[in-house]
């Protein structure tokens, strides 16, 4: 397949949970260029396929909030009930999937009509959600079941589960759609899953309380919430390379499309950090609102 040069990321859409706001960060200059008041203690974030619209979960007000990522206007709000947190957008369809960690289900929202169009029963307390790049499968990290659910998007049925380490929270799928990685907050490791075979192919030790994972340059980057570090591991060898001193409570993490930079929301320090995935150095820092989480895919 001929590679299409991926567009360089320009902005991050960062949920500032205690501040009840969403910060927009210009990644070229690492400066906050907008702050959108949304309320509801926003936490999870996903972007539409064209990346023009952001979808934010607000666990306190139990809402899904739709934001125009270009004009920064809040467009629509939808009360989902329960405790919406993890969220993922389909790569082509106008659908987002929201994890409700008390009701143990995923909620399917049609983003055109902005209504709930389905529910999918999963394991206990689903947290992170991710869709394979081909749009065929949906995966949820079912935290209190210590497992990942694998769901067929077309039929909205659970095909199977894969056991992980203890309390998986964030889940990330590689570009090939071959492997999924979960950050297991209680066992301090990452579980590596072969999605097609539905088996565990490896485990990588991390720092204290791993939260979420980014993939770039053949490496994995894990935010160690309590450790204040980023554990870097080799995706081939599934072995740790280095632990980067990062910040207080690093949480949401994502690489830009070109894998030139990895961005980390630092909940304790109220900044978005930039890390060079090759040199493994912190190369930039942008102040944002209080308590950034950016749990999901937040780079446009």
């Amino acid at each position: 397949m001929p590679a299409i040069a991926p567009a360089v990321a320009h902005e991050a859409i960062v949920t500032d949970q205690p501040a009840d706001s969403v910060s927009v960060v210009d990644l070229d200059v690492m400066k906050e260029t907008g702050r959108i008041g949304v309320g509801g203690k926003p936490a999870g974030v996903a972007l539409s396929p064209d990346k023009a619209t952001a979808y934010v979960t607000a666990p306190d007000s139990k809402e899904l909030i739709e934001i125009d990522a270009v004009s920064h206007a809040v467009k629509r709000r939808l009360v989902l009930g329960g405790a919406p947190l993890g969220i993922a957008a389909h790569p082509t369809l106008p659908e987002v999937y929201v994890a409700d960690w008390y009701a143990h289900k995923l909620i399917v929202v049609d983003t055109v009509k902005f209504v709930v169009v389905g529910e999918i029963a999963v394991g206990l307390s689903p947290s992170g959600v991710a869709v394979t790049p081909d749009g065929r499968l949906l995966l949820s990290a079912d935290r209190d079941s210590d497992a990942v659910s694998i769901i067929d998007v077309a039929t909205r049925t659970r095909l199977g589960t894969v056991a992980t380490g203890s309390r998986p929270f964030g889940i990330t799928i590689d570009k090939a759609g071959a492997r999924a990685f979960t950050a297991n907050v209680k066992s301090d490791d990452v579980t590596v899953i072969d999605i097609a075979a539905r088996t565990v192919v490896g485990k990588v030790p991390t720092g204290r309380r791993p939260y979420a994972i980014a993939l770039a340059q053949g490496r994995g980057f894990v935010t160690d919430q309590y450790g204040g570090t980023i554990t870097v591991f080799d995706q081939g060898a599934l072995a740790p390379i280095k632990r980067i001193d990062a910040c207080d409570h690093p949480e949401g993490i994502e690489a830009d499309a070109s894998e030139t930079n990895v961005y980390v929301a630092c909940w304790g320090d109220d900044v978005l950090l930039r890390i060079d995935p090759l040199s493994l150095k912190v190369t930039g820092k942008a102040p944002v609102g209080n308590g950034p989480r950016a749990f999901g895919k937040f780079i446009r």
Partner: protein
Amino acid sequence: MLKRLLIAAAIFGLAPLSLTGAAWAHGPSRQKVVESIEINAPADKVWAVIGNFQDASWIPAVAKTEGKGGNEPNATRTLTLKSGGTVEEQLDKYDAAEHSFGYEITKVDVKVLPINDYSSHVTVTANGDKSTVEWKGAFYRGYMLNDPPPELSDEVANKAITDLYTSTLAALKKKIEGGS
């Protein structure tokens, strides 16, 4: 006034509450408290008072510290409070050069402290002959599920931690500047 009584009840174990439900699922929104104080003493002197994880006597609410592992990561300590409750803690990060440590609470009853999943950083920053101590906490409220009772709300959790930090830092300043 009622609120204060409820807070006192929650802290001192008078609340007639039993928590049921999910053992680990936490409330929906993590809280953050950051308090700091300037102390008229060099950072080394302040660090000498607070930088030993096995001695929490600088926290007035603490009657006794018992632990193992020194100041190495994963060291543990059990604080026995003057009010009678205990708090079990673990050291996650320790940097003597940076005058900073990070720790978490591994076990505490919400009747002792109305919080869950607490982690914290304490940092001393030099400022000439003076120094600033910052105490930063991350935690969830005492009630693990949606729609908490008032005595285990976000507000009560924030108040309990804020009061602990401000009173402890004020006492620390007095202790060090008083020359003891």
